[in-house]
C-alpha cells in the first residue's frame, strides 16, 4: 500500500523544484526581516515616547537634581533619539532587555520562565482546537442544514461567546473541587511544585525528565482544564470559518465535474474541497494561535499558572516599562513568525503560486 502510494505520487504529483522552494523561503525571510525592523522601531518608540519617566521611577520624586541627572545618564535617556535607538539595538543583540523596575530582575530571565509556559499551553490548545474545528466543519459541510450542522453551530457559538473566566471558574468548581477529576490551580501538585527542576520551562517536558511518573501525571491533570478551556475559546471561530470556506468551495465547477466522475460527497470533500480551502484554513488557525498567545491572561489568572499574558498584565499595572517592552517584543516576534510561516505554507501549497 505504501509502495503504491509512493509510486502514485512520483508518477502523478510534481513536487516543487528546489529553486522554487529557495525563492519562496528567501522572500519570506526578507519580509520577516523587514517586519521585525518595523517591530523594533515601534517598541523603541513606545519606550521613548511613553509618559512614564524611568529615571524618576528609579530615584523617586524627593531626589536632588544631580541624582536625577545621573540616573537619566545611566539609563541612556539624555542622548539624542537616533543614538538611543542604536544603543537599544546594540543591547538587544547582546540579549539585554533591561531590568524590571518592579522586581529588579533581568527581564530576559523572567521572560524565559513565563514564555515557555504560555507557548506550551497555547500550542497544545491550538492543535486540539484545529483538529476538532476542522473535523466539525467537515461534518457540517457534509450534511449542511442537518441536525449535526445545527448542533455544531451551537457548540461553536457557545465556545466563543461564553466568558472564559466564568467558564474557567465553573470548570474548576465542578471538575476539581467537586469531582476531583482534574488538577486544580497551578501547574503541578504542591508535592512536586518545588521539587522538580524546570530547565526548559515546559512543564510536560520537565516533569517527564524528572524521572517521577507522578510528576508527569500531575502536570497533565493540571493542564487538562486550561487546555480545554482555551481550545473551546478558539474552536468556534476555526469551525465556523472553515465551514464557510468549505461550503463556498462546494459551488465550484470542478466539484460538479468530480461528481460527474462518480465521486461521492465525502470523497469530494476530502480530496477536492478540503485541499482547496488550505489558504483560509491556515489563516484562521494562525489567527487563533496569535489570539491564544496573547489572550491566555484570564485563563492564566483563573488557573494561577505563570504565563506571558499574566506577566504583561502585571507589568502594565506596575508601569514596569522594560518588562512591558520585553513582553511586547516576544509577542511581536511570535506573531511575525506565525504569520510568516503561514504565508509561506499557503504559497507552498498552492501550485499557482509556486
Amino acid at each position, binding site marked *: 500500500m505504501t509502495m*503504491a502510494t509512493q*509510486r*502514485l505520487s512520483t*508518477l*502523478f*504529483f*510534481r513536487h516543487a523544484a528546489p529553486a522554487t522552494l529557495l525563492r519562496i523561503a528567501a522572500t519570506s525571510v526578507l519580509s520577516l526581516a523587514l517586519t521585525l525592523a518595523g517591530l523594533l522601531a515601534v517598541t523603541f518608540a513606545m519606550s521613548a515616547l511613553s509618559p512614564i519617566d524611568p529615571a524618576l521611577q528609579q530615584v523617586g520624586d524627593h531626589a536632588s537634581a544631580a541624582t536625577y541627572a545621573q540616573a537619566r545618564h545611566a539609563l541612556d535617556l539624555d542622548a539624542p533619539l537616533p543614538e538611543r535607538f542604536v544603543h537599544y539595538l546594540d543591547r538587544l543583540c547582546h540579549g539585554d532587555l533591561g531590568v524590571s523596575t518592579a522586581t529588579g530582575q533581568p527581564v530576559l530571565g523572567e521572560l524565559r520562565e513565563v514564555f515557555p509556559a504560555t507557548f506550551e499551553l497555547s500550542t497544545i490548545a491550538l492543535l486540539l482546537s484545529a483538529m476538532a474545528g476542522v473535523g466539525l466543519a467537515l461534518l457540517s459541510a457534509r450534511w449542511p442544514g442537518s441536525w449535526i450542522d445545527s448542533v455544531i453551530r451551537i457548540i461553536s457559538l457557545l465556545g466563543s461567546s461564553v466568558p472564559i473566566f466564568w467558564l474557567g471558574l465553573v470548570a474548576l468548581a465542578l471538575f476539581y473541587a467537586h469531582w476531583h477529576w482534574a488538577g486544580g490551580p497551578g501547574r503541578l501538585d504542591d508535592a512536586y511544585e518545588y521539587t522538580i527542576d524546570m530547565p526548559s520551562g515546559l512543564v510536560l517536558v520537565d516533569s517527564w525528565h524528572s524521572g517521577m511518573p507522578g510528576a508527569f501525571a500531575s502536570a497533565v491533570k493540571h493542564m487538562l482544564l486550561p487546555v480545554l478551556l482555551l481550545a473551546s475559546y478558539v474552536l468556534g471561530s476555526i469551525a465556523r470559518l472553515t465551514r464557510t470556506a468549505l461550503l463556498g468551495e462546494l459551488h*465550484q*465547477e*470542478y466539484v*460538479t*465535474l*468530480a*461528481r*460527474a*466522475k*462518480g*465521486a*461521492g460527497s465525502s*470523497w469530494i470533500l476530502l*480530496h*477536492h474541497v478540503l*485541499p*482547496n480551502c488550505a489558504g483560509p484554513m491556515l489563516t484562521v488557525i494562525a489567527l487563533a494561535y496569535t489570539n491564544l498567545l496573547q489572550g491566555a491572561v484570564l485563563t492564566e489568572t483563573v488557573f494561577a499558572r505563570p504565563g506571558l499574558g499574566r506577566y504583561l498584565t502585571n507589568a502594565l499595572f506596575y508601569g514596569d516599562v522594560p518588562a512591558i517592552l520585553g513582553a511586547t517584543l516576544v509577542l511581536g516576534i511570535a506573531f511575525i513568525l506565525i504569520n510568516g510561516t503561514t504565508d509561506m505554507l499557503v504559497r507552498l*501549497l*498552492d*501550485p*499557482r503560486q509556486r
Partner: protein
Amino acid sequence: MAEHPLLHVQQLEVRRRDNREAPLVGPFSFDIGSGATGLVGESGSGKSLTARALLNLLPPNLQAHSRQMRFGDRELSTLNNREWQAVRGAEIALVMQDPRHALNPRLTVGEQIDEALRLHVRMRTTQRLDRVLQVMDEVGLPQSRQLLKHYPHQLSGGMGQRVMLAIALVNRPRLLIADEPTSALDTGLRNQVLDLMMQLADTHGMGLLLISHNLPLVARYCKQVLVMYRGQCVDRCAGNALDQATSPYTQALWNCRPSGHTFGHPLPVFDPESIEANAS
C-alpha cells in the same frame, strides 16, 4: 426485434422541490441512439438542466422525474445515490464547458484523469498509468508523460478541453454528454475538438449528446437534433435538415446564426409572440 436506442427517456421533467410551479423542463420524451444527438436552444431553455437530469446531477433544490429512463438494459430512474455513482463517469460521462473552472486547480492532470479511473476500477497503479497514458494519446495530448505532472493553469484552453475529454473517456463510457464543450474555445480549436469527439464516438461506438447553441456546428455533426424552447422540446429533426426546418422556432434560430455574410448587418430579430401563437 427492433433496434433498442442507447438511452430511451419517457416523460422527463425537472421541477423545483417545493413543486409549486410548472416544471422547468418538460415533460418530454426522447431517444438517444448511436451517433451524435444535438440539443439546441437559447440560453435558459433547459438544455443544461436536461443534461444534468440525465446524470442525476441537478442542484439540491431541483428534482427530476421520468416515467422511464432506460439505458441499455438498465432502468436509471429507480437508482439510488450509490448506484448512480457507479453509473456516472463509468457509463455516462460529462464534458463541461470551461476547463479553467472545471478542472481542480490543485491537482495535476495525471491525478485528475487517474481519479476517474480509480473511482470505478480496481487496478494496480502501473496498469492505471498505462490506461491514463493511452487515453491521453487517444485525445491527442502530446508528451503525455511530462503532461501528467502539469497543473491546469499551465495548460492552454484546447489542451484543457482535451484533458477533460480524457477524464470522460478513461472508463470507456457508452454515452458522452458534452455540455457546450467548445464555447470557451476559438473557432479553429472548436472544430478540432468536435472532430476528435465525433471520431472517438465512432471508433468506440459511443453515444454522444452534444449541447450547443452553435447551430451550424450541430447541423454539421449531429444525426438528430432536439430543439428546446422554454423547457419544452419544440422540434426534432435530422441534423442535415436543420436549414429546411418547418417549425417556426427552429427557422428563427437558424436565421439568427451569425456568419461571414451577416457581418456588419443586424441579425434578424426573432419574435417570441409569433412562435407562441404558432405553437398553441
